[in-house]
């Protein structure tokens, strides 16, 4: 029992001297969730690239148009489905390596979401042509045959009503 109380005390002490551990719980936010301000100078750029663990040549920025991405790097759009499944990823579930920067829209490009970089079997132009070809082709055939309504070459059904007489093709 005393050991249990001791361990609780250790937890309390560690939280007291490392308040950052409870920041996320208490405030639902910490400063590292937010990218830094948009880098203006070359020096700031280099600093930001280092912060995100990128080579300066790989470090590209989102336009500073008020969307709020700040200095967050604009990474190439590669969906998780397009990544090599046989590469020994550190984190195979997400196909991601340790400390690899995440794309800003990472939550939309996972394996269970949309594959932004899919290589299409047929180009979008071909697909549209196929779709419109089928649709307008079918409509064209419909328009043509709308004029030529086929029917069973028969006289209407014969009923013995209203004193009407009908005949077989046998002679008397």
């Amino acid at each position, binding site marked *: 029992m005393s050991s249990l109380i001791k361990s609780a005390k250790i937890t309390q002490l560690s939280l007291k001297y490392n308040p950052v551990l409870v920041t996320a719980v208490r405030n639902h936010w910490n400063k590292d969730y937010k990218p830094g301000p948009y880098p203006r100078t070359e020096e700031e750029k280099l600093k930001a690239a280092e912060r995100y663990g990128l080579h300066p040549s790989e470090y590209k920025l989102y336009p500073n148009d008020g969307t709020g991405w700040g200095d967050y790097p604009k990474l190439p759009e590669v969906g998780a489905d397009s990544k090599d499944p046989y590469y020994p990823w550190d984190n195979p579930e997400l196909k991601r390596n340790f400390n690899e920067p995440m794309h800003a829209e990472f939550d939309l490009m996972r394996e269970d979401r949309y594959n932004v970089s899919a290589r299409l079997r047929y180009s979008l132009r071909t697909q549209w042509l196929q779709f419109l070809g089928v649709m307008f082709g079918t409509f064209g055939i419909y328009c043509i*045959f709308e*004029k*030529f*309504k*086929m*029917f*069973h*070459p*028969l*006289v*209407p*059904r*014969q*009923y*013995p*009503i209203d004193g009407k*007489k*009908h*005949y*077989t*093709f*046998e*002679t*008397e």
Partner: protein
Amino acid sequence: MGAAFGYFPESGFNLYFRPEVTPGPDEEPTFDPCLGFENGRKERVMVATEEQMRSAKIPPSERDYCAHHLLKFMACRKENWPWVVNCEHEKHVYATCKYDDYVIRMKEYERERRLRVREQKNKEIEAA
């Protein structure tokens, strides 16, 4: 299926391109039914009576010259239910009657068409 892709489309094209000699699907025969039959034709006989059909609740669309076979077939089904396969004979008789009816209507249509063609030809000869 075979008929639908065989001679059915032709009826549509004929009606569009030669409406003067092609009877439409809803047109009754216009010529004298006994034209060309020296001794006349046998009349079709209605066996089932109005009372029978009314009591059996036969829908108006089925009150044609095969109604008496339909009456027998439905009566047999009612007696044998659920072993309706016992009524295969009645069913076959009814289907044969319907088939013959179809053939008569087909022949009647073709007769009407040929008489129209003949009339057209006669007109052309007169005009010439």
